[in-house]
């Protein structure tokens, strides 16, 4: 292992990394918000007893959960434009692939949360004259959302890691920029290690926080 470490070029190129990190954060922000809000709608639809709402929601969940995200991103990048005539940028293709996948996964999380609320709460809502939507919004969701918080945080961590897949269609994010630096300076060890460390440093505290949230919630439920 007489390897000459070359971290200097990494620091010289910190701006390249910074641009990549911004791309990662943008991708994460957009896909997390779209995925988790869309997932709530689909999760509620999946819970409802009206087949015309429940069935399309079920099909949506099964399709986008069972097709690998990379296949979705590639499909939206190369196949979708031919089908619709709409050009998809690397950003749009990645946003579609990751958001749809996140919607499907978080829909199941929300549904499980809603189902975990006792039936009596629905009956109580009805007894004091609340409609389905009112009961859902005022009584059921506040309880359900609290219970699914750990699962949602875990999903968020997965979404953050998934943003690296956007590099496959040449969207400018951290991994893509590391590849650029590695190719220009012949230092793949340093640049790829740096990306791994960046992700670890960002996500490790979040993972620790989920443990704390989980413990607190399980205590407050008793």
């Amino acid at each position: 292992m007489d390897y000459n470490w070359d971290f200097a070029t990494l620091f010289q190129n910190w701006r390249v990394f910074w641009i990549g990190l911004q791309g990662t954060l943008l991708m994460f922000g957009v896909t997390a918000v779209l995925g988790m809000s869309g997932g709530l709608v689909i999760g509620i639809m999946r819970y409802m007893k009206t087949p015309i709402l429940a069935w399309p929601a079920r099909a949506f969940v099964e399709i986008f959960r069972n097709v690998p995200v990379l296949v979705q991103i590639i499909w939206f990048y190369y196949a979708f434009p031919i089908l619709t005539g709409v050009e998809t940028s690397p950003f749009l293709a990645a946003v579609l692939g990751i958001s749809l996948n996140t919607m499907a996964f978080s829909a199941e999380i929300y549904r499980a949360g809603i189902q975990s609320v006792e039936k009596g709460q629905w009956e109580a809502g009805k007894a004091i004259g609340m409609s389905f939507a009112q009961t859902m919004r005022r009584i059921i969701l506040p309880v359900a959302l609290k219970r699914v918080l750990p699962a949602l945080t875990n999903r968020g961590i997965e979404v953050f890691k998934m943003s690296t897949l956007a590099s496959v269609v040449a969207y400018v994010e951290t991994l893509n920029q590391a590849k650029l630096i590695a190719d220009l300076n012949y230092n793949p060890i340093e640049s790829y290690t740096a990306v791994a460390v960046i992700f670890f440093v960002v996500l490790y505290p979040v993972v620790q926080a989920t443990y704390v949230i989980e413990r607190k919630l399980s205590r407050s439920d008793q």
Partner: protein
Amino acid sequence: MEWNFAPVLGSMDILLLGLLNTLKVTGLALLFGVPLGLGLALSRLSQMRILSMVAAFIIEFFRTTPPLVQLFWFFFAFPILFGVNMTPFTTAIVTFSIQSSAFFAEIFRSGIQSIDKGQWEGSKAIGMTRNQTLRRVILPQAVKRMIPAFMERSIELLKTTTLVSTIAYTDLMYQANDIAQRTFRPLEVYTVIAVIYFLLIFVFSQLSIVVERRLAKSGEGTVH
């Protein structure tokens, strides 16, 4: 635009080879990843502080870094650092074995911890060592509770193997890229492989739901 599936159907043998390679990588990563995960879990639960801390670090590191970054690291950085040759195939096996072992370790750990403390005490009372208790009493029960989480993880692993196409291993995804470039039919090719992946993974997920229901009926709790 017109759909034309003829070029894709003509290359079905290439896709099939890719599918076999996808399953091969998944299978081998499971074969190495599960025992490695058990080892990591036992180390993490060990009373030796250093061992426990090292295991915890490995687990957290491989859980918080993206698999694509790990794959690139083992493909581009690892060979230079250690002077070994890494083919796309060995890179895939090494990366996914370690990556999935970190997740399996957490499943093993929550399974082992879900077993009532009294069982440890009971075994100790009849003179069993820690290892004996683990092997004869704790693990048989823990493993049964872990099965649903274990199947879910294996399905995730199957989906993650698509990443190997980026380092030119001939899995299903790579073969699709290849055919799409040669036939200029990306729409049909990518739609077909999306369907293949869907069917494959859908069957496995349905299977895991059936198993989970059976376990629930037999009165076993499960861990996640």
